[in-house]
């Protein structure tokens, strides 16, 4: 029971009632928002989980073939082989609006569309293990980007859900009960005043009646 520090007047009561109504409507809306956000979020997280398992698996496969390449070639040979890539990846970001949360959509473009452009070296000086490693990597790149997209979306949505949940809870457990208690206490005070007023009037009436009776008797005698 936490009553706000306000004057117990009819004006105040009316104002508080209006506030309570707004708070209740806001609470309902925010609750709906939270539920829908949660639904979207869980979908994204599920997708994210599948993607991550896949990316991690594929990447470790690529790393394994890279390890083989390192075994068959010297470190310098590999470094010089891929020192100057034939293609560069440019990323463009568009945003998508999920329940008024802006989440990124990534898409990338390679400057060189030739599928062999991922091998920036001559095949004479390198081993086929390196080719395999780089092929695996290029294979996983698109999924990595998808992963980035869904993971970032999940993070941003999680933040928004947290905020919305706090607001809902603040309204549900603090604002609305406080307003209710205050309204109740003001109503009770006003009623008490009313009762006090009635008793006073009755008392005054009694006194006036008595006075008149006495006057009447005095006149008769």
């Amino acid at each position, binding site marked *: 029971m936490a009553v706000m520090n306000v004057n117990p007047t009819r004006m105040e009561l009316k104002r508080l009632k209006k506030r309570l109504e707004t708070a209740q409507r806001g609470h309902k809306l925010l609750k709906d928002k939270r539920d829908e956000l949660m639904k979207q979020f869980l979908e994204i997280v599920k997708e994210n989980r599948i993607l991550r398992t896949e*990316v991690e698996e594929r990447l470790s496969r690529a790393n394994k073939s890279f390890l083989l390449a390192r075994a068959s070639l010297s470190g310098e040979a590999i470094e010089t082989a891929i020192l100057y890539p034939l293609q560069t990846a440019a990323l463009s970001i568009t945003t998508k609006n999920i329940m008024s949360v802006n989440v990124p959509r990534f898409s990338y473009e390679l400057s060189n569309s030739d599928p062999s452009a*991922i091998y920036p070296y001559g095949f004479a000086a390198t081993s086929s293990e390196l080719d395999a490693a780089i092929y695996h990597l290029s294979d996983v790149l698109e999924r990595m980007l998808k992963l980035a997209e869904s993971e970032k979306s999940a993070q941003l949505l999680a*933040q928004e859900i947290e905020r919305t949940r706090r607001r809902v809870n603040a309204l549900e457990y603090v604002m609305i009960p406080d307003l209710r208690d205050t309204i109740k206490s003001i109503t009770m005070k006003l009623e008490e005043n009313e009762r006090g007023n009635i008793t006073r009037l009755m008392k005054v009436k009694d006194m006036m009646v008595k006075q008149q009776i006495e006057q009447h008797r005095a006149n008769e005698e």
Partner: protein
Amino acid sequence: MYKIAVIGDKDSILGFGALGLETHFAKDSMDASQILNRLAKENYGVIYLTEEYALGAENVIARYQDQMTPAIILIPGAKGSLGIGMRAVSKSVERAVGADILFKDQS
């Protein structure tokens, strides 16, 4: 146009260079967080970071978590997956729901 960067040790990320991603080699997680901070100020859309170095760079990662860019995504390094990336996913579930409801059975 945004760029994509990969941060990690040489063995883990050398190959990404061939695909046209920018590779930044780091010696340890301190080094990695410094690079991360530097890259975050430029226009990088996605930064991939190996899990191994993410271990010591949590606060830098957390700083950019609520921004749209850069998206810092953990990838397994040459030593294989450490499960940190997966844990980050379950952490965001925890943040949103208040309890981990999807990954309970695994960890």
